[in-house]
């Protein structure tokens, strides 16, 4: 009976100590308040900072251990209430720009976000007194701030475009800055969105991949090729050496890649871009001029190889359906497609000679596989011939048996043997 009581006494100071460090009177009150005052208390459960042991007073100041609202929210104890918009970046930077502090929680995380933010359009405008621009909380949310790799975070790659679009697609908000609001709509029709959202490829570019995140601003005309070249390395290399590079760079109103491919709404390139009424080349090269002729030639090459490969593929598929052995030719066809990819790449040198090699190699493969598939189809016909011959033999035999039966039974009718009584 005695020992438990003694233990209770021992536990009391421990309990008090524990309460001293984890007590959070902010939550105690705010979680039972109504409406807007309750929201933070509900959201903060999912916040990455809560998980690291931080709490309300670490941002808002005040004394979270005081049960008296006058004490807990006392400006004398550092309580700042709702931080002013203009003060937010600095508030976050207190910790996030402090390497010694961040090391305790996320030793690998960068600490230059605030510095970068100050170079961004958002940061510069905020500094000049425009409070409508994005601050930390507009992208990362507030009270339920999640890690970037958390799929529910508004800055998770799959969700980032919508987060930016929240403001940048809002015509009213953008009106006074005179910038377009169609970027997100265009982006949603692009190959990049398709790769990101439809195929779920997280490495596909979202807004931040080209514009930067904390230091977000448009890449300037001269650096567009470098931005695209981050991923499209070989294209950029060829383009940099091409005749178009100095001309496009010098041209006003856009540079490099976007002259042909546009910026936000980049579509799957087709040969219609080279030749025909919608050709981008015809912006500068009038039909009939040498430049337009070269473009037309390139389009013809690519279309020719593409359709030759597709034709081989369809004939191969037909042979395959008949159960013919064509796996070798199908592998070869893969090499052919590789040459088509290389030809499309070589196009960005804008020199026909560079394209010739992959085109010719690809055409040779297309012809070779076409022959193989035609041979396979011929073999199928041989099989059917074999079947026909066999069926003819079977037919002759059946006919002969039938005649034999007729013969035997006409004899039976004569003799009317004991085993075959005549019908009544």
């Amino acid at each position, binding site marked *: 009976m005695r020992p438990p009581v003694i233990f209770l006494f021992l536990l009391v100071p421990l309990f008090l100590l524990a309460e001293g460090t984890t007590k959070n009177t902010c939550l105690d009150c705010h979680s039972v308040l109504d409406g807007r005052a309750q929201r933070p208390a509900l959201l903060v459960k999912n916040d990455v900072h809560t998980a690291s042991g931080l709490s309300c007073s670490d941002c808002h100041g005040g004394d979270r251990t005081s049960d008296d609202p006058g004490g807990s929210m006392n400006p004398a104890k550092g309580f700042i209430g709702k931080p002013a918009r203009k003060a937010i970046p600095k508030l976050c930077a207190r910790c996030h720009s402090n390497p010694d502090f961040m090391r305790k929680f996320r030793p690998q995380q960068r600490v230059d976000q605030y510095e970068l933010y100050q170079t961004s359009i958002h940061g510069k405008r905020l500094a000049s007194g425009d409070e409508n621009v994005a601050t930390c909380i507009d992208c990362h949310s507030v009270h339920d701030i999640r890690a970037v790799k958390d799929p529910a975070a508004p800055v998770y790659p799959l969700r980032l475009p919508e987060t930016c679009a929240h403001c940048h697609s809002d015509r009213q908000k953008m009106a006074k800055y005179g910038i377009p609001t169609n970027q997100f709509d265009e982006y949603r029709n692009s190959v990049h969105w398709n*790769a990101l959202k439809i195929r779920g*490829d*997280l490495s596909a570019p979202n807004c931040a991949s080209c514009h930067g995140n904390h230091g977000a601003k448009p890449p300037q005309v001269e650096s567009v090729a470098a931005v695209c070249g981050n991923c499209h390395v070989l294209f950029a290399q060829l383009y940099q050496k091409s005749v178009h590079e100095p001309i496009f760079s010098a041209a006003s109103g856009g540079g490099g890649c976007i002259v042909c491919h546009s910026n936000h709404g980049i579509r799957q390139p087709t040969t219609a871009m080279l030749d025909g009424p919608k050709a981008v080349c015809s912006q500068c090269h009038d039909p009939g001029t040498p430049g337009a002729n070269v473009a037309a030639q390139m389009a013809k090459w690519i279309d020719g190889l593409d359709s030759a490969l597709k034709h081989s593929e369809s004939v191969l598929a037909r042979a395959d359906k008949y159960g013919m052995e064509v796996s070798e030719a199908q*592998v070869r066809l893969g090499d052919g497609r590789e040459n088509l990819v*290389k030809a499309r790449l070589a196009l960005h040198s804008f020199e026909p000679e560079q394209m010739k090699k992959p085109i010719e190699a690809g055409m040779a493969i297309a012809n070779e596989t076409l022959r193989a598939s035609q041979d396979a189809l011929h073999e199928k016909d041989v099989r059917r011939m074999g079947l026909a*011959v066999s069926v003819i*033999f079977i037919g002759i035999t059946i006919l002969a048996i039938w005649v034999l039966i007729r*013969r035997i039974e006409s004899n039976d009718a004569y003799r009317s043997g004991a085993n075959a009584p005549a019908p009544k």
Partner: protein
Amino acid sequence: MKASDTGPDTHLDQDRRSVLSWLLGGGIAASLGSFFYPVIRFMNPPHISEVAVDEVSGGKLNDLKANSGKIVKFGNKPVVLVRVSETEWKAFSAVCTHLNCTVQYQGSTRLIWCACHNGMYDLTGRVVSGPPPKPLEEYAVRVRGDEVIISRRA
């Protein structure tokens, strides 16, 4: 049978009978031939030795120098075999995960490289740079005698 029975009818009958037996015998022989010809051909082992697609030979041990690689046909897919050092071997699917081009080993950078869009993979198959969305599938390599054997990973 009496002699008087041997009229033109009987002659005709005998003719018919011989035609019939010829037809029947020939038909059966020919049709049996058409059944057994494929059977005999089927039993004849094919010239192309069986493709063991769970395992292929990557060639002789000394065909490949250290820090070099080559493409080996694995069933109907290419595999890139890399001799990392004298004793260490690696093999990966050589089909780039971006647009299915065939990748190659680059000794100078010690990376697997795709010539189409400059995709780079390290020697664990992971994407180092460029557009590939997924790592390369790795294959198991072992040395048997002086032969290098590539097999699918269990």
